[in-house]
């Protein structure tokens, strides 16, 4: 178990390094190769030449790439001072960059947006796992029934629908026509749990729908496979109740491949969250990034991408720990 933990920790550290390197490449190296001036990109198109030069010095764009990368990485735990001789812009730790457009550290934006995205993603993934696995198990147990076929058709429909379209339809029906739920426009931590729940209910369902269907198919396939195994027959033969056989014996081992896919889908979840937030106008990380596209505020896009990728790397560690809980082979190895 300890060896497993250490191995996974090393994997996460490597993943974090890759993320840092990839983000740095995308934002500080690629534009140069494509003939863009990075200082102009970071300043935003409307800035004057003098300002651009100031930003160039502040970002250290004239320094060697290795120094730039080190400054970029060190800023996250240590904070960073962007100085150009005459004035100093302080960006306290954790520094995910500084928006020269709004004159605020990107972390301020991230901090405000984080609870919304966190609540949206957490609720949706609980919902999609629960709904997907439950549907899949029922489909596997009642193979070929009407329920089974309906679930499979719904699954195909679910993966074929663009999430922003379902979101708009759901909002049109339940918010604007029927008026069943009220969506709070500017969700903040000051709002009560009731407001949060009501605002996030539709986004949760819409975001979960996207993947619940796929998990249902996956669960069904693995369950059918597992149910044909000898040890299931043994479990039945020694007189265990059907319920115990299904939940303790079959589902538990069927969960391993589902968890694998789930680990890979964390990125999809986040992408879905970006789209859901834009559709429902929820002030989360995704909306911040999308608004930054139109206002050409590159540091914010960088900050959101970097933060999201790091969050996923850490979340993968949690998934790895769940493996150990579910699969005794991992624990004992």
């Amino acid at each position: 178990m300890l060896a497993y933990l250490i191995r996974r920790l090393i994997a996460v550290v490597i993943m974090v390094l890759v993320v840092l390197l990839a983000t740095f490449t995308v934002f500080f190296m690629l534009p140069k190769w494509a003939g863009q001036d990075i200082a102009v990109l970071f300043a935003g198109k409307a800035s004057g030449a003098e300002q651009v030069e100031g930003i160039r010095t502040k970002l250290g764009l004239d320094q060697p790439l290795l120094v730039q990368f080190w400054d970029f990485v060190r800023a996250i735990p240590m904070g960073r001072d962007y100085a150009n001789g005459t004035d100093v812009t302080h960006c306290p730790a954790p520094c995910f960059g500084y928006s020269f457009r709004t004159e605020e550290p990107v972390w301020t934006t991230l901090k405000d947006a984080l609870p919304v995205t966190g609540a949206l993603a957490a609720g949706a993934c609980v919902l999609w796992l629960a709904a997907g696995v439950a549907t899949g198990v029922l489909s596997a147990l009642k193979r070929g029934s009407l329920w089974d076929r309906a679930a499979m058709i719904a699954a195909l429909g679910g993966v074929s629908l663009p999430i922003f379209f379902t979101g708009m339809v759901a909002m049109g029906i339940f918010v604007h026509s029927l008026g069943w739920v009220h969506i709070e426009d500017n969700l903040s931590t000051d709002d009560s749990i009731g407001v949060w729940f009501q605002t996030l209910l539709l986004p949760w369902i819409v975001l979960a729908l996207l993947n619940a269907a796929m998990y249902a198919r996956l669960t069904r396939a693995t369950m059918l496979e597992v149910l044909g195994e000898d040890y299931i027959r043994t479990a039945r033969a020694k007189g265990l109740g059907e319920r115990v056989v299904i939940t303790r014996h079959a589902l538990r081992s069927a969960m391993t491949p589902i968890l694998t896919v789930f680990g890979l889908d964390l990125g999809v979840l986040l992408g879905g969250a970006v789209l859901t937030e834009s559709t429902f106008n929820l002030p989360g990380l995704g909306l911040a990034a999308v608004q930054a596209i139109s206002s050409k505020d590159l540091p914010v896009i960088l900050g959101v991408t970097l933060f999201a990728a790091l969050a996923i790397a850490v979340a993968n560690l949690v998934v790895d720990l769940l493996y150990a809980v579910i699969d005794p082979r991992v624990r004992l190895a």
Partner: protein
Amino acid sequence: MTAPLHEPTAEAAPPASADPAGAGVKKVEGRSLKQIAWNRLKQDKVALAGGITVFVLVLVAVFAPLIVSLLGHPPNEFHQEKLDPLTNLPQGAFGGMSSDFLFGVEPNKGRDVFSRIVYGARISLLVAFLAAVVAVVLGTLFGIVAGYFGGWIDALISRTMDVLLSFPQLLFIISLVSVLPDDLLGLTGSGVRIAVLVAVIGFFGWPYVGRIVRGQTLSLREREYIEAARSLGGGRRHILFRELLPNLVAPITVYATLMIPTNILTEAALSFLGAGVRPPTASWGGMLRDALETYEHDPMFMVFPGATIFITVLAFNLFGDGLRDALDPKGTR
């Protein structure tokens, strides 16, 4: 994203390397995998319907100018006279649908929705198809190399694929699109955006193909016919591209087909977020983005692009699923 393993049997191999399957007791007329697959596909009504829809959509995209000149108005022609001067919403019921404007007119701008849907098909299918080509080429190359050579090459490629798969792809694509310039390598205008979209979507798609190809190669390289080719003195390149690759055509075809709908959704999502092709070029995702402002009052403008995306993606998925069943040598139908 899991699929049953395809095990192309010896029939799929070119005659030179075909090893006679042991179970040839029954006298059956020799049929190639292509013939078997075609016969199965012909009987699969659902897949056939999907295939025909796909074919029609491709025709629509190719002959867009002709169709629009016959049935619509130029996609960037403004028809303010069709809008209510007070609300800027289309006059008449159902978003201004009439024999003149088949799908109604756009709110605010008064452009012909039908023409924009037809022209949007071009962007959507072009980007999705080319990105699938990029993904298939990269994925096949890396997958086959990883699977055949094993060792540290396999480890490196496999880890790279894992990392790429768990990346928050949508955010990275947004980042890439926003740092790349509008004129690149001599291309200008929407051509650059299309090229960037193709490259970026294709780049994040190759690990999906790569994993499948790697797995297939792993199992195929131990087969007798590969051993035979090796003992006959076949070089590495010969074995990889003449012996292995033909046997991978079936799973690669299936995955390419199933990748196109995913790419269509990604392209639509990017356009929806404002990181796709630039307006005024018509795209389905871009139309939904515009519809987000007015759908409470003019739902039809949201329904047409949304339904078009849904039908297109569903058709590709149905056809791809059918193709997979048809090409599965273990299939019974």
